[in-house]
């Protein structure tokens, strides 16, 4: 029996080795943000018909990991919802370009008996995650939600345990809104969370914990909340309106953002009556100098994603890029050397 298994293994392995040598599609590897994972997998599926010679392998391991592995040059591209810091870029072996590909909203998801629709604002959210507001029937919450009966349940705040661009957008927003947060916890893909609640891996992990734990609250991309039909809150924006996260409200925030030439910008707490305050762009990061064939396929994909791909984004709850931004990015892509 063992001889037969050995022969079979050798045969299969041999077939595999032989197939290695035939003409194969070029394989482009990327990783990073779980924020973009839904739209990326859809894009790759559709793009396979446009460029039949390339295969895109994307693993959603978190924005921090995307940046780190790009710096280590173990990836062809990274995807991150947090821009790379100047320090990080200084340590890179080449110039790195930021290309915004989508913008999305971070939904504040929660688990309460009866699944009521809640309204929250930045100060309350900061209070919850700082451990200052501990029960759902706290006066600050009930004041924002007249007519909703809130139980005396303990609040369990869930945060990301891995390095996450979603965390970056969330903490960016809290830093802008709440001075204590800005001084103590600050913003980042991984922060020193106050000692409340638990950490979960990936947006998937956060969504999962929220679904299982009564009284919990968390943050995740809108797509995950909708996919799992987890209730999320309407947030009070800079104009004083309570807005739901949706492609429209995120687009409204994006429209008011000032975008510099290197495309690194923040759009939290954007002005405007319809803007959703906890929104952020998500970038694909590449080196300006792409060696060879893979680079051509990668840039080809990016040009498609920034233009044609934008028609697909709203179906998955992302905000499309405005036409003017698309043109600026195409110009930047023209500077890529091979």
């Amino acid at each position, binding site marked *: 029996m063992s001889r037969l298994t050995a022969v079979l293994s050798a045969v*299969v392995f041999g077939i595999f080795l032989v197939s290695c040598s035939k003409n194969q599609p070029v394989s482009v590897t990327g990783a990073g943000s779980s924020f973009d994972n839904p739209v990326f997998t859809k894009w790759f599926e559709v793009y396979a018909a446009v460029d039949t010679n390339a295969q895109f392998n994307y693993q959603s391991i978190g924005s921090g990991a995307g940046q780190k592995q790009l710096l280590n040059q173990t990836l062809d591209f990274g995807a991150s919802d947090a821009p790379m810091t100047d320090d990080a870029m200084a340590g890179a072996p080449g110039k790195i370009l930021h290309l915004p590909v989508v913008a999305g909203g971070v939904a504040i998801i929660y688990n309460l008996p009866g699944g009521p629709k809640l309204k929250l604002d930045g100060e309350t959210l900061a209070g919850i995650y700082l451990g200052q507001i501990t029960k759902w029937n706290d006066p600050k919450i009930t004041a924002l939600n007249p007519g909703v009966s809130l139980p005396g349940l303990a609040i369990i705040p869930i945060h990301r345990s891995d390095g996450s661009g979603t965390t970056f957008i969330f903490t960016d927003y809290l830093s802008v809104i709440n001075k204590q947060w800005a001084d103590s916890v600050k913003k980042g893909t991984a922060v020193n969370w106050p000692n409340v609640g638990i950490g979960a891996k990936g947006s998937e992990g956060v969504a999962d914990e929220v679904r299982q734990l009564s009284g919990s609250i968390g943050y995740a991309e809108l797509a995950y909340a909708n996919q799992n039909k987890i209730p999320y809150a309407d947030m009070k924006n800079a104009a004083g309106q309570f807005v739901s996260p949706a492609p429209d409200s995120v687009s409204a925030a994006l429209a008011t953002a000032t975008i510099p030439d290197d495309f690194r910008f923040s759009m939290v707490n954007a002005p405007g009556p319809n803007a959703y305050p906890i929104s952020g762009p998500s970038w694909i990061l590449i080196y300006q100098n792409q060696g060879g064939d893979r680079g051509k396929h990668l840039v080809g994909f990016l040009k498609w994603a920034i233009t044609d791909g934008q028609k697909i984004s709203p179906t998955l709850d992302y905000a499309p890029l405005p036409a003017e931004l698309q043109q600026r990015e195409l110009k930047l892509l023209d500077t890529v050397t091979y």
Partner: protein
Amino acid sequence: MQVVAFICAVLVITPLLLVFYHLTKLGFSSINLAFFTQLPRAVGETGGGMGNAIVGTFILLVEAAVIGVPIGVLGGVFLSEYAAVSVSWWVRFGADILNGVPSIVWGLVVYALVVVPMHGYSALAGGIVLGLMMVPMVMRATEEVLHLVPGGYREASLALGISKWRTILQIVVRTALRGIVTGVLLALARVAGETAPLLFTAFGNPYWPRNLTQPVAALPLQIFDYAYSPYDDWRRQAWAGALVLLLLVLFINISVRVLTRERWGAKP
């Protein structure tokens, strides 16, 4: 006391039964032909399978065997046939130490040694880490089995004028072959379920494996990925994948027990 001991014994085997029961309940319905033959679909689409992960695991195991078996078996031969007692004590001790190294540490080391210089994750790195993990397991198992071959066989062979190395290969190892295969299979079953080292080496890949220098999917990695995805379809596939992996591992373990019991007549 008898009752207490009996209850403890029952409690001890309960988790195995529960795990099996829940995996079957949650995963069996998702096991179909598509599961074994198709690639994962895009997020939110139904259907698709883990075919690439199953093939990926198979490839990684073949690579691991290519590395682990020669080094492990030959090392075991050295321990059993050539080594002085003190030397073999140290090597055995070292092998036991290596067996105790957490698998995530193995992953870190192979990441630094293979993935970073290669500028990329690869099936090669994944196979290397699993193969290296197998070496101490196979070595210890081989040594023990070779010890069980009666000394008379060796002496008779040498008396006939056969050189020592051929005695070892053609007489001793061949006699112990079933036991060695057992040891190799158990080691393979053990590394087949490893996830942590693959996080930093094989990386995962939604396509069929084609090239050893590219990242590759693997069953435990895919299970880990899908287990926490927010999509019901993927989660069901994770349960199915877990069931398949568990069955594979249990199958190897059970057949190994059956083989050795016949041969050596071990008493409980």
